[in-house]
């Protein structure tokens, strides 16, 4: 019994550390989105590209920032269901953002363009999915870890 309690506590502290780090990175990405949009400049590094339009960079940046704050706020006493719900909500916000970006890629990759054929060619189709990616897409795999903890709670 005591061993189970100890392993739960270890898992909780592991989750708290993981989501605290993820929260810091997510908050930083959200702030970067908003700052890049406000400055009207472009920013790209490796596979990362920060969108600078008012919709994805401004509105979207606000959502990424909120996701980061949800993570950070939920990490204290993460074993409590209400606190853990904040962490789950942070991940849900990332899924909404990344899901929209991926859906936009899918819709862009299917048609063949104004002067091209009805459907895109295979290279044209694959090209749409190539990097660089928006911060939410890069955060997506890391946010999925929350599913593991949801099942662990069950």
């Amino acid at each position, binding site marked *: 019994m005591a061993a189970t309690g100890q392993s739960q506590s270890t898992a909780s502290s592991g989750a708290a550390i993981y989501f605290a780090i993820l929260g810091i990175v997510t908050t930083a990405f959200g702030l970067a989105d908003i700052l890049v949009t406000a400055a009207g400049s472009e920013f790209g590094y490796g596979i990362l590209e920060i969108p600078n339009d008012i919709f994805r960079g401004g509105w979207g940046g606000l959502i990424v920032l909120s996701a980061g*704050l949800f993570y950070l706020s939920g990490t204290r006493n993460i074993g409590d269901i209400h606190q*853990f*719900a904040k962490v789950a*909500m942070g991940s*849900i*916000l990332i899924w*909404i953002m990344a899901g929209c970006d991926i859906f936009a890629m899918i819709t862009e990759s299917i048609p063949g363009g*104004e002067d091209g054929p009805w459907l895109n060619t295979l290279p044209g189709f694959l090209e749409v999915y190539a990097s660089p990616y928006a911060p939410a897409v890069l955060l997506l795999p890391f946010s999925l870890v929350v599913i593991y903890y949801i099942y662990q709670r069950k």
Partner: protein
Amino acid sequence: MTLGLEERWTLIDRISKATVTFGKYEHTLKDAIGELTVKPLTGIPVAIAILYGFWSVFGSFAGTLCTDGFFVKLFDGYWLPWIQEAFPGQGDLLYRILVDAGGIDSGEFVLSDNCFEAFGALTSGLFVAIGVVLPAIVIFYLMLALLEDVGYMPRLAVLIDTMLHKIGLHGYAIVPTILSLGCNVPGVAATRILETKKQRFIMMTLLAIFIPCGAQIGIMEKVVPDLLGWILLYLLIGYFIFGYILNKIVPGRAPEFLIDVPPYRRPLLGNIAKKVGGRIRGFFTVALPFVMLGCAIVSVLYLLGVIQFLGDLLAPIFVNWFGVPAETAGPLVAAFLRKDLAVAQLSVIEMTEYQMITAVVLVSIYFPCVATFAMMLKEGWKELLGALAALVVVVFAYGGLIHLIGILLGVA
């Protein structure tokens, strides 16, 4: 057999013992997430994210995939050239109304090269109805049905209740408001969920003036995508300013509302299909005929010179009061019948970004479309007259205010 009072209570106790399980209820993750989405501090960021998702999916599906990806090519590349050739009497009155209003160059009738400029009922009318509005309506109602079935809409109603009370409405007013973003007709019908005449009047007036329908938003996204955010922001600000004023001057009650917030549920495909199917059928039978008819009437009025005449007559008001170029007078007059096409017409007129924002906002607040007009009449002619009186005041006051803001900012 008649039971005495004591025996009834005993029976109730026996039944409840047999059917009810007593114990300590532990909150589940679903409950905790449900609570987070109704508390303002956490619920507002979630609402912002859900609305972002709504519009992002709407734009990607309706704009990028359907309209730009396939329908523009289908209508401009195949349908328009075919019907221009196949329809007899090129340049005749009937041809210009149904197929292509065209243009005159060196005394010769010149055909249009895209469906936006053709202005025929069978070209522009069909393209707007099928190529622009239909995908917008389908994805809009699909997303709305998903949010309803998941159980998010009642939470949004609770979240926005305090804000909507400031304009004499309550949280459930969000339902007609969001429905109107698809089509104003079901939006006006949905005002019946509000309890008092005052609330229904305020809601109907605000919907008719400040809520652009899916057709308009679809066209705006196609022709002025960079300015869409600013246009919607101006409309949103106007919605609250004039809602507040209407609440102060319209007599009547604005009661509180009680709502049962259901738990989040997995949406059922059958339910969603039924809802979306019913709403799209409603759009096809009620609103679509008006879209086609409106297109034909606008063509006739253009050909008879009525719109040009009214445009010239009203141009000084548009130029001096609203600060938009004189050329916008024609589309703004035509907006009485076809707001979406009026936006498309505005997009080809040379003007500054601020003037474009002003002109498109004016088109939106200018007059309800004919289908909405008919629906409002069904709700009562007194309400309709009241809403129209409010509309005239709002157009001049808000249009002038936007111009004034532009002058103060040095952009008008």
